């Protein structure tokens, strides 16, 4: 039975269980819902949960595990003489799977009978499969066919066992809860506990995913450091990858990239923090309700512009403008792509982050603080500087650090605005590049995932991750340390 039908069947069982459970509860209460511990629907929901939840969870786990378990047994069927290394075995196994699927498909479409499929010969099989739209790369080797038939047989057997186990679980769940359903059974608590488990599960998935990402980055990074010395990576002042085609050794120093990242981020923050903060102060403290009503959403529109559009703006407008108006006349360079271009445009992108968050935080400072300050004869400006901003500072610092993380991770604006030349230079009108841009360029095109030139992307990514993580931890620390408790 296919998983789709199995799910449908379990769902139908759950529905029937719900109706029966509700009816039994009502019957046990003599038809008076007030005698029941919980509302009648809880009894139905409880039965449905016990029928569906274990069965579906086991089904999900089964579908993940079955191919993994079968793979090992099938690859053992292929004679060791048929392949040289693990890579070749992988290719063979892909063929095995394709042939097995092709045979199944042929049976399904009626091109072959089940018996014909079992007795299929290696010689003409490729042509037969091609007729029904399954392409097999090379002529089918008899040993591959044997493995494919083995896979089909094991698969069919496992599917049967799966169907039996799932249905048995659903039936057992039904029997268990249905027997326990009576007027004093605490169905509501049981259902609410299930909801609690759901909530826990959701948060666990988020955490585990993060952990998974970090671990996969970590393993690839370790892989990289086995092929390339870590000291070179962290301390070399040159970034000069050489792809295998051209020969020669690469120098993969992260410092020029880090320099570019930090330089551009700092310019972006110098642009965005004052503008964002000042506009937040104006909007929250001085602006009238009506002005605020349309200015704030307008400012937030900036946050909705895709970064690639900002990148185009940098490439076509800001870059040439800076070059013609400042860099060329002052003799600082004649490149339209520059740190300044990317920094300015990124700063504009970050303004709504800083202003919107700061505005919310300033608004959260209690009116009592303002009243207290005005009551002592402070002007509005004194009140803002000496009472409101200090009170809002932890939140504002948090907003700025959040903006900084965005700046460090930004890619598109840098690609289009700052160029791709990795170098360390203090002249902001020179083209430089960042970590993120180089991750993209190392992974685009024809890549070989065992060469250091490609694997370096993971090391770069992990470094970036550690930096933003550090910033976030710092932000949390500052917020905790200086947070003031209001009532």
């Amino acid at each position, binding site marked *: 039975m296919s998983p789709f039908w199995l799910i449908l069947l379990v769902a139908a069982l759950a529905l029937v269980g719900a109706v029966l459970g509700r009816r039994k509860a009502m019957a046990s209460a003599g038809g008076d819902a007030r005698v029941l511990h919980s509302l009648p629907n809880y009894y139905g929901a409880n039965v449905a949960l016990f029928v569906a939840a274990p069965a579906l969870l086991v089904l999900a786990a089964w579908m993940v595990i079955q191919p993994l378990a079968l793979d090992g047994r099938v690859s053992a069927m292929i004679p060791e003489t048929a392949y040289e290394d693990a890579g070749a075995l992988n290719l063979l196994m892909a063929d095995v799977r394709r042939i097995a699927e092709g045979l199944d498909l042929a049976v399904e479409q009626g091109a072959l009978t089940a018996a014909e499929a079992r007795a299929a010969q290696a010689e003409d099989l490729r042509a037969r499969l091609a007729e029904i739209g399954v392409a097999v790369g090379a002529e089918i080797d008899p040993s591959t066919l044997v493995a494919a038939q083995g896979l089909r047989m094991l698969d069919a057997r496992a599917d049967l066992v799966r169907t039996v186990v799932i249905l048995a679980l659903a039936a057992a769940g039904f029997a268990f809860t249905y027997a326990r359903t009576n007027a004093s059974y605490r169905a509501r608590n049981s259902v609410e506990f299930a909801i609690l488990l759901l909530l826990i599960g959701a948060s666990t998935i988020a955490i585990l995913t993060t952990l998974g990402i970090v671990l996969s980055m970590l393993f690839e990074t370790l892989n990289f450091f086995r092929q390339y010395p870590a000291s070179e990576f962290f301390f070399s002042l040159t970034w000069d990858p050489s792809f295998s085609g051209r020969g020669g050794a690469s120098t993969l120093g992260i410092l020029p990239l880090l320099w570019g990242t930090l330089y551009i981020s700092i310019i972006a923050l110098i642009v965005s923090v004052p503008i964002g903060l000042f506009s937040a102060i104006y909007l929250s403290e001085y602006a*009238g309700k009506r002005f605020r009503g349309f200015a704030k959403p307008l400012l937030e529109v900036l946050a909705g512009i895709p970064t690639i559009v900002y990148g185009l703006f940098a490439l076509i407008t800001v870059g040439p403008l800076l070059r013609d108006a400042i860099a060329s006349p002052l003799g600082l360079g004649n490149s339209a792509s520059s740190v300044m271009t990317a920094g300015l445009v990124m700063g504009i992108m970050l303004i709504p982050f800083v202003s919107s968050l700061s505005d919310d935080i300033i608004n959260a400072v*209690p009116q*009592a*603080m*303002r*009243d*207290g*300050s*005005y*009551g*002592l*004869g*402070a*002007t509005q400006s*004194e009140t803002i500087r*000496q*009472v409101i901003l*200090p*009170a809002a500072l932890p939140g504002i610092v948090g907003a700025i650090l959040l903006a900084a993380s965005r700046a460090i991770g930004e890619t598109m604006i840098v690609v289009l605005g700052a160029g791709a030349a990795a170098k360390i230079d203090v002249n902001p009108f020179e083209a430089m590049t960042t970590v993120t841009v180089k991750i993209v360029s190392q992974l685009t095109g024809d890549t070989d995932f065992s060469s250091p030139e490609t694997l370096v992307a993971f090391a770069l990514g992990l470094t970036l991750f550690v930096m933003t993580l550090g910033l976030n931890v710092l932000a949390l620390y500052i917020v905790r340390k200086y947070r*003031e*408790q*209001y*009532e």
Partner: protein
Amino acid sequence: MNDMRFTERTVATDEVKIAAKGVQVYYGDTHAIKDVTIDIADKTVTAFIGPSGCGKSTFLRCINRMNDTIPSARVEGDIRIDGEDIYDKRVDPVQLRAKVGMVFQKPNPFPKSIYDNVSYGPKIHGLARNKAELDEIVETSLRRAALWDEVKDRLGAPGTGLSGGQQQRLCIARAVATSPEVLLMDEPCSALDPIATDQVENLIHELRERYSVVIVTHSMSQASRVSQRTAYFHLGEMVEYGDTGDIFTNPKDERTENYITGRIG
């Protein structure tokens, strides 16, 4: 009302500190204060009593122009402090508020240290020439608010970490630090427990020696304990004003009598 202490009823001076004539306040279309005329004496505690929403807090906020911070509020009429019209165009409300201190219903210390809370006003108005003078102002103010002994060892600790009663006395010290002439208190004890209330009430007795104190209160027993003069507000009007003893024992207006005997409010 068996705890009424009709002590110290004598008004120390008949000198008028605040003179209000025909004051009207509007919040948008709502007429919140209707034609209030009152003379408040110097070195006296004057209590404003009345049911919720009767306008007593609103009127209090007229005296230091705190209503200016509410965009929809409009004040008409004439309020003079020492004969000077405080709604005159030449008067800077900010300067006025330094002269007319205010203590709010809920203690609202700034999220700063105790020292910085008290020195906030003097610093803004440039009352101290050097650190030593500022230290002295802080100490005097905290002493006047009867808080010095409790906090002298931890002036650097955050003001928000004090107990409710201490916070309110800190706010009083903060108001006293700008050397005001009038002290307005808007239900200063409503968020405090009985012990803290008692401390603040004792403090109000002492403050009377230097300032003209105007206190809004919901508690009639508090009004009778701390004030020499009482004004009864009802639905935006000032119904009756006189010596506290007279108001509580011999009210002239029926509405005052109803309120005091607990039939309204």
